[in-house]
């Protein structure tokens, strides 16, 4: 659907680098690098330009609620006086960066609440489905659901963060045929209807994972957030080939069989991460199309950023809110909804790529799902590169088995003590001992997961759960097994080595180091991400 405001967006494509190709922009945390890739053996995968958003999001949402997909009645038919209604919604990890107001969650939740009010429903709880993520602050909740919803519900204790360590607030709904405990939010389990509000930024999001993961705690998560499952998720962005999703789907069946009625609402956004205009617009332009003025702006911006302290740079970037527009909304039965959602994510992000590469390069940006308003610590660098970006493929990994991944990021030895207390200990103790995910899981996971202080901080402060850094490491375990070497350009050498990777000062050095593994004159593919793309590798 298009509203005609913009020229037809161009799809993503693969550029073969030749001598005339300008230097390519690499994200580098809260900064950038311009890198000249070797001609004749390098290629760059560009994301598609932003699709146009829905012209009338409110109307589209209402249409979706009244015209559900799959075996589901329209939402008004599911609402009645005296019922218990729980609206669960995605937490601060989505979308990235946070979007400008009004957030999609606000639009959807307001529409759901209007229908609930029309039906006389007055027992409504709103829950940020954060599983073992950190709690959202008041400001973050207000941003997600809007001030009107916040003020109507939060002061009465009806809008809150999930507490997956509350022994009275969680239940076991049953067990899958694979012996997996289905751990679930008691309020949701005891509701007559659970409405789940998603923002599906990538194809991994949504489906049964929304509730089976988002409304669960460690007791349930450990069955799929583990090394075995994630090594067999190829990729975790491709549900059909993801053991992680298979487990969540099994859990979804148990949830359904336990009598929990879920009305799933999924939405997709376009690729307008940095804006078509404004100070960051050129980040989603192709380099050869930069005007002279934009080049000057870029150099001035980079020079300015380079002289700022890292925390100042971080704060500047943290203020950025993406002008994302909603490209689709669908509601109804979980699986039927998710099929359509996934197609809509792919429509924006999928880029066909022929063949694998010896060396995959990527510039990691300043943000990932777990450092919104926070610090991108080294473990999150690993997770963003090896967990998220590496897995943004369908078919085969972009880089061949035994190949080299080169990432660009400052990788500071720096942590947010409030948000990531167990990360500090994971980095200091666990990674100092071993980087092998299997060993880490076997020897340390339980101790961290059950650490009473971490649990206390998760429940009462704004800390990720004690086990969360383990999951970050497992997230990259498929990549760790697949790759012959990981090199980080421009990172803190000590932090990079602690991760088990190799530091390089420049991309040229990194490519030289890579040749030790993949031989001279390797093929190189740069994944120019974000805006987000997913490689469809044949």
């Amino acid at each position, binding site marked *: 659907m298009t509203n005609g405001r913009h020229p037809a967006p161009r799809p993503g494509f693969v550029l073969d680098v030749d001598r005339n190709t300008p230097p390519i922009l690499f994200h580098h945390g809260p900064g950038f690098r311009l890198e000249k890739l070797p001609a004749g053996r390098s290629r760059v995968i560009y994301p598609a330009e932003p699709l146009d958003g829905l012209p009338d999001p409110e109307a589209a949402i209402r249409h979706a609620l009244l015209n559900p997909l799959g075996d589901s009645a329209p939402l008004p038919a599911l609402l009645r006086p005296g019922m218990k209604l729980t609206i669960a919604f995605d937490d601060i990890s989505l979308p990235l960066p946070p979007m400008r107001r009004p957030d999609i969650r606000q639009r959807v939740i307001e529409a759901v609440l209007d229908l609930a009010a029309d039906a006389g429903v007055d027992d409504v709880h709103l829950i940020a489905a954060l599983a073992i993520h950190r709690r959202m602050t008041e400001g973050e909740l207000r941003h997600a659901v809007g001030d009107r919803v916040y003020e109507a519900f939060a002061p009465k204790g009806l809008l809150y963060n999930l507490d997956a360590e509350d022994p009275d607030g969680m239940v076991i709904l049953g067990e899958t045929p694979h012996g997996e405990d289905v751990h679930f939010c008691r309020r949701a389990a005891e509701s007559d209807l659970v409405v789940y509000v998603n923002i599906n930024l990538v194809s991994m999001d949504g489906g049964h994972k929304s509730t089976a993961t988002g409304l669960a705690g460690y007791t349930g998560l450990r069955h799929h957030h583990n090394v075995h499952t994630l090594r067999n998720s190829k990729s975790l962005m491709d549900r059909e080939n993801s053991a992680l999703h298979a487990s969540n789907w099994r859990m979804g069946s148990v949830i359904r069989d336990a009598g929990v009625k879920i009305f799933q609402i999924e939405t997709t956004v376009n690729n307008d991460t940095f804006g078509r205009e404004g100070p960051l617009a050129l980040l989603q332009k192709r380099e050869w199309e930069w005007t002279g003025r934009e080049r000057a702006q870029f150099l001035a911006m980079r020079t300015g950023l380079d002289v700022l302290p890292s925390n100042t740079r971080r704060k500047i970037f943290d203020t950025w809110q993406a002008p994302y527009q909603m490209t689709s909304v669908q509601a109804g039965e979980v699986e039927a909804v998710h099929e359509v959602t996934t197609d809509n994510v792919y429509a924006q992000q999928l880029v066909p790529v022929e063949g694998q590469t010896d060396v995959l390069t990527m510039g990691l940006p300043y943000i990932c799902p777990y450092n919104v308003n926070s610090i991108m610590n080294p473990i999150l660098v690993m997770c963003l590169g090896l967990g998220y970006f590496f897995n943004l493929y369908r078919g085969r990994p972009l880089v061949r088995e035994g190949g080299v991944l080169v990432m660009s990021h400052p990788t500071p030895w720096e942590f947010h003590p409030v948000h990531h207390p167990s990360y500090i200990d994971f980095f200091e*103790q666990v990674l100092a001992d071993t980087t092998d995910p299997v060993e880490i899981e076997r020897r340390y996971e339980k101790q961290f997961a059950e650490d009473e*202080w971490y649990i206390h901080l998760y429940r009462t402060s704004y800390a990720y759960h004690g086990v969360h850094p383990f999951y970050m490491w497992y997230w990259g375990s498929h990549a760790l097994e697949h790759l012959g070497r990981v090199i980080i350009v421009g990172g803190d050498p000590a932090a990079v080595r602690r991760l088990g990777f190799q530091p390089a000062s420049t991309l040229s050095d990194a490519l030289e180091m890579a040749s030790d593994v993949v031989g001279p004159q390797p093929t190189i593919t740069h994944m120019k991400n974000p805006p987000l793309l997913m490689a469809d590798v044949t």
Partner: protein
Amino acid sequence: MKALRFRRNLPRYAAARLAGSLTPGRGATVGPLELVDLDLPAEPGPGWVRVRPRLSGICGSDLATVDGRSARYFEPLVSFPFVPGHEVVGDLDDDQRVVLEPVLACASRNITPACTACADGRLGNCEHTTFGDLSPGIQTGSCHDTGGGWATAFHAHPSQLHVVPDGLSDEAAVMVEPTACGVHAALAARVPDDGVVVVLGAGTLGLVTIAALRAHTAPRTIVATARYPDQRRLADELGADLVVAPDEVRRAVRRAAGTRAIGGNGQGSEGEVDRLTGGADTVIDCVGSSSSLTDALAVAQPGGRIVLVGMPAVVELELTPLWHRELELVGSYTYGTETLPDGSTARTFDLAFDLVTRAALDRLVTATYPLARYREALQHAASAGSRGAVKVAFDLRDERERNAR
């Protein structure tokens, strides 16, 4: 004989203090320490014997002296000039190899009756180190009359000597004295079975203390701090369960003890670890700095015990936690007679001989120098950790003066 002699010379002492503050060990180049030829002093008394050192170690207290960092506390407890060196394996005139137990207590001072401490076998607590037939000096190596180990000969009282068993190398034997300090510290710590004990520092004292804890106590977890990779490896090999960098110790002890923590600034500092709410049963501080003692006070559980093994000199310390958490802070100096967890008693040196053999502590002797290269030796010892060394010693086995009959 050839000897390294330390004279009372205030200008040179000040120069050593300045040089040592710039580069540890540099006090040897400008300070009151000098290599000299001199006659072996007369025997301090009847029965004393001549010892010709084979290996003579350099310890932290020696380095403090050389770099002008010694506490003024010691001024009345030494007699100038003196020859340092108290970690000694040497030969008697009949070629019997011996290890020196350097404390100059009542027996060596010919004081009878012995003081209460000596009578109890607590030689390190001797009340008479400035009295009797000898000039002041708490140990050989700080007493003018006896000489010291950094020479080709010195005098020892028979009560100070332990015969080295056949088969024990000189390198192992020279480790007996520092190991005795570690054994004494480990037993003074009174580590409860299944408790958590922390050893701050992984220089010689820290490492031998870890080995002694593993040999003589039964903690659930030994947490150790180590600044350098080789220290980390050795601490691990000798029995530490968890070895971390010094600035990581508070978080590490929190994990090991399974306790909560408090941030430094109260509100908004959740997740930071300024101090623990519970903590370790025992902390053994083998560094003795303001920083290490502050760490010790932060990680010891209420009612816990802190044992100070590293020589502290002057430190600046916030003692509120000692008061508020009702902590015990006790010193551990040298050795004597130990009461073991099973109630039996033994000489610390006997336990140390055994531990040196069982734990192969000869591996800690990582560099030796002839006396003539004492400046290099002392600078090496002062930067031992960063240079991958632990115990640096003088090797006198080939010194011409020593072997002349």
